[in-house]
């Protein structure tokens, strides 16, 4: 099942290589159908996933095929409560992004084929990264998704800073990926488990914890490696710049889904395998997260370009996930996963809509717009709803996630949580409402008198899908939390217990140092 979800877009990408360049409609349809099948399958997996009936390893829909036995690499996929929602979110966003490829079609018919292929590869890579239970494939799938991002920004990007943006995002993210790769390899070596399999690693570490010295070396590598990928402050400047220049479908997929890879890695790998180091770093993470939530929120207030504003706000939202992780509490981690999923939908929605807006008006400079709600009723309503979701309005999934994080983190970090609440409720509202005021309210400027919406109903489809997802999980958060909590509990138990066995730690420390 999971394999089908991953392979569907990848096979479609292969097929498209055989399609002649002029069959533009065929390519579009293939891309949409492939991602649609993935989405339907992901919904089925999500629906049938039942946390209570998990197998021995704690995963469902598992599939394992050995690949390189000597190194312990295998193709291993499976879902538990942590990634089942993320896969669903990824598949929905991939479908929406494929539907939003229209923007490209009208501007650049020539390279339609390459764009579709890259988009499909990216979708397959993303889904593979979240489904994978093997460190090797986990990393490989992420790179598979990451590299098309660079190409797409470089070739189909917009704006005067396109080249610099491509340059910066490529360098930045490659460095981040590289640092985390070092961390992952070190983890593989120092654990002594001789396997890349995450389930196997966890089982092994439970018996033989990784020595503290190594943990203290590996954890920062993972934290900052992944941190760069997630735009952890102060490594965030690539994000607004990159998203400002990226074509809409790319920004949707990257900001919505791919960026969550690092967070997922931290929760899935770093917390259970490196518990003591994680505990000693929680304070740092909690204060760094304010760099995202508070500082980037303030910067967002000063933006004049809509895409930059959304970019900074998306960086700011990452802070809530960090806060949830830093709390190392069940409520906090559950909230963190909720925010990841909710923000995935939200980021895709806002970047998709801003792409649509750019296509309609030819500008994203907010000073040059106004009163567009009358001219663009659907786009306006959807974007206003997205803005409210972004500043934490109940009814949308983001509110549930953020508020859960606050509850989880309050006991440990009251001050940090307090500032985060201020940023979420007040600063978020300031920049979001300012954007609404500038773009949709007030009189319409002369040069935009003629804009109109496309009347084609399919044009609305991707945005409706994303909005409905946000509302469904906002109204019924238990759909997610009932799945997340049992799995998060395991992570939390591993992350919080090992200090109870100091003797075993000294022994393993000696064992490792002897050879």
């Amino acid at each position: 099942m999971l394999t089908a979800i991953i392979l569907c877009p990848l096979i479609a990408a292969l097929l498209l290589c055989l399609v002649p360049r002029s069959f533009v409609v065929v390519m579009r349809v293939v891309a949409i159908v492939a991602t649609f099948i993935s989405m339907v399958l992901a919904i089925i997996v999500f629906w049938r996933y039942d946390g209570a009936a998990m197998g021995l390893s704690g995963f469902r829909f598992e599939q394992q095929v050995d690949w390189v036995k000597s190194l312990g690499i295998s193709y291993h996929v499976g879902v538990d409560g942590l990634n089942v929602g993320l896969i669903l979110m990824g598949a929905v966003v991939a479908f929406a992004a494929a539907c939003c490829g229209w923007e490209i079609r009208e501007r650049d018919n020539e390279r339609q084929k390459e764009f579709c292929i890259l988009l499909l590869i990216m979708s397959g890579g993303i889904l593979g990264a979240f489904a994978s239970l093997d460190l090797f494939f986990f990393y490989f799938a992420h790179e598979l998704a990451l590299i098309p991002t660079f190409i797409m920004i470089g070739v189909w990007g917009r704006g005067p800073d396109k080249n610099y943006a491509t340059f910066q995002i490529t360098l930045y993210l490659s460095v981040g990926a590289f640092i985390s790769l070092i961390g992952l390899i070190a983890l593989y070596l120092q654990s002594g488990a001789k396997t890349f399999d995450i389930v196997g690693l966890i089982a092994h570490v439970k018996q033989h914890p990784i020595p503290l010295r190594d943990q203290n070396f590996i954890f920062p590598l993972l934290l900052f490696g992944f941190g760069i990928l997630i735009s952890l402050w102060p490594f965030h400047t690539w994000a607004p710049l990159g998203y400002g220049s990226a074509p809409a479908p790319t920004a949707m997929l990257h900001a919505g889904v791919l960026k969550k890879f690092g967070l997922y890695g931290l929760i899935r790998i770093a917390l259970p395998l490196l518990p003591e180091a994680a505990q000693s770093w929680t304070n740092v993470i909690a204060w760094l997260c304010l760099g995202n939530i508070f500082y980037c929120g303030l910067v967002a207030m000063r933006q004049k370009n809509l895409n930059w504003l959304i970019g900074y706000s998306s960086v700011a939202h990452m802070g809530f996930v960090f806060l949830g992780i830093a709390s190392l509490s069940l409520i906090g981690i559950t909230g963190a996963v909720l925010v990841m999923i909710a923000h995935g939908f939200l980021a895709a929605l806002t970047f998709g809509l801003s792409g649509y807006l750019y296509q309609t008006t030819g500008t994203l400079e907010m000073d040059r717009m106004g009163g567009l709600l009358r001219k663009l009723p659907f786009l306006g309503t959807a974007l206003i709803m997205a803005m409210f979701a972004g500043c934490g309005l109940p009814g949308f999934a983001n509110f549930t996630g953020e508020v859960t994080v606050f509850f989880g983190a309050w006991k440990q970090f009251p001050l940090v949580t307090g500032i985060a609440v201020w940023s979420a409720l007040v600063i978020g509202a300031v920049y979001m409402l300012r954007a609404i005021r500038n773009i949709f309210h007030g009189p319409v400027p002369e040069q935009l008198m003629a804009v109109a919406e496309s009347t084609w109903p399919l044009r609305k489809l991707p945005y409706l899908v994303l909005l409905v997802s946000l509302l469904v999980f906002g109204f019924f958060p238990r759909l997610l939390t009932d799945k997340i909590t049992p799995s998060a509990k395991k992570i939390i138990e591993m992350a919080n217990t090992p200090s109870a066995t100091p003797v075993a730690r000294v022994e393993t420390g000696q064992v490792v140092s002897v050879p």
Partner: protein
Amino acid sequence: MVELLAWLVLFLPLLSVAAITIFTRGNAARSGAISITAVVFSFICGLVLFYALPESSMGMPIQIPWLSIHDQGLGLDLHVDIGLRLDHLSLPMILIVTGVGSLIHIYSWGYMKGDPGFARYFACLSLFTFSMLGIVLADNFLMMFIFWELVGVSSYLLIGFWYERPSAADACKKAFLTNRVGDFGFLVGILLTWATLGSLNFRDLETRLNVHSVEFSAVATAVGLLIFCGAMGKSAQFPLHVWLPDAMEGPTPVSALIHAATMVAAGVYMLCRVFFLLNVDGSQALQVIAWIGGITALMAALIAVQQNDIKRILAYSTLSQLGYMVMAVGCSGPVPAMYHLTTHAFFKALLFLGAGSVIYGLHHEQNIWAMGGVRRKMPITFWTFTFGTLALCGVPPLSGFYSKDSILAQAIKDHHYGLFVLGVVVALLTTFYMFRLFYVVFKGRPRTEAAEHAHESPSVMLWPLFILAIFSIAGGLLGIESLYARHFEAAVAGTEPGFWDRLLEPFNEQLLAASFGVLAVVFGWLWARSLYRNKAVDPLPEKLGWWSQLLRNKFYIDEFYENVLIPCTQDALARVADFIDRWIIGTFAVRGTANVTDVAGRLLRMLQTGSLQMYAFLLVAGVAGVLYWVLGK
């Protein structure tokens, strides 16, 4: 059955929102009909519940679990229900929201006729009704917060209903943001309460408070003040009051429903709902609440004296009355607060709808000095408005007299003599500014063309005025006070007071308060009459001098916020953050790293000249160096 009715009360308006947005957006009449039907049926369900609900099932839980995480590590449960609580506090409030709401929905049918956004208007109105009912029925803090935010957004949408007008667009933004500042405190207060007492459910909190009273008393003041922040935003108390007068940019029925009768009262209702958390030993919160309420009442009444826009005068009057209610809560009197909230909902809705009728009849003229002599042109509006004015001023035996008197009596009972004096002064000012409005708008001669040709409003707008007028007159004799008292005080044995007892109750109970209240009305009326009868210009600015300037400009509080407070705090921080991001991180660090790499690359490139001789020379030099290193020693 009870459960079904309760869910219907809450969800009928939401169904109407969904139906309008999905199906009937394009059809104005049908959208309006759906919305009106929903709120009327909601009202009927509420009535059935109110009369048929047996005492034994009061406060029984009706819940659907919404979010539930049991955290052993923290030792805390995050458990949130969508739960309804039916008791003597929420049931009357449901009737106010849906009852006054129904009348205003019907009135809107006439007032908004022909507006291109008719369907959108009714969808927003239904959304508001749903959210407000959610606040009233909520049985836990987080659910209340959820609906609190939804009320905020529906208010945003309705204030900004005519969003193409820059003033309306700015006003809705300001309202939402000011409320968000209050909500910040509210949410932090909820977090603190939850972390201390371990629950969010009001009933659980009440029982846990008895067990953990020692732990709680350490944070009681903080909790009380933080939660009060929420009420300060929503009920527009000083210093977060600035949004309410601007909110008058919305359509007038909206001002009546949301910004006078119901939503702004939500803060007071919430304080009464969690009164058990405020009223604990060792908490200073009530003192602060009482004085903030008093200050708001006085300040708003003073400002109202020198406003010239009919809706703004009523808005400041609302502020002032809300201050009364908050003051009553602060004087440990939730019953008088709720009492005044109820009567105020009647007469203030009536006044706003009456003002709307005047505005409608004068083709959207709002300046009172451009009116005059409206009495003869619009007799029904005039008479209903008059009764609303008398009720607001507190003329016995109208409803406002009883509720205001109970607040003044409460201030004496709680030994807040300063606040009692303040309350009497506010009552005097209230009568003064209301009769100023009355004389200038309705009496005298028409001063403009529009006033000359004013016409009475259609009957769909007049019936709601009638009904509200009846309640404004008789509201004090319906036994509303004893209804609320049943919630807050242990059941008082004895018979229900008869009609004559109710009529004369204030004078029997607390003669001082009642007589001062009446005196204030008399003096206020005489003062206004002497100044404003048959006047074409305001004589007061000459007499008051710079005071008038100060009042007209609302004590310059808006200017202070816009030009001093916000630019010096948050905006300044944002500027600094933006600077750091652009220049220090963006340029210095990121480009700096890039430049260092670049320069290093250039330097290294000098070695890669591609000249064979050079390489050979370097090779030899290297070999020589190594040889020297190895052999030379």
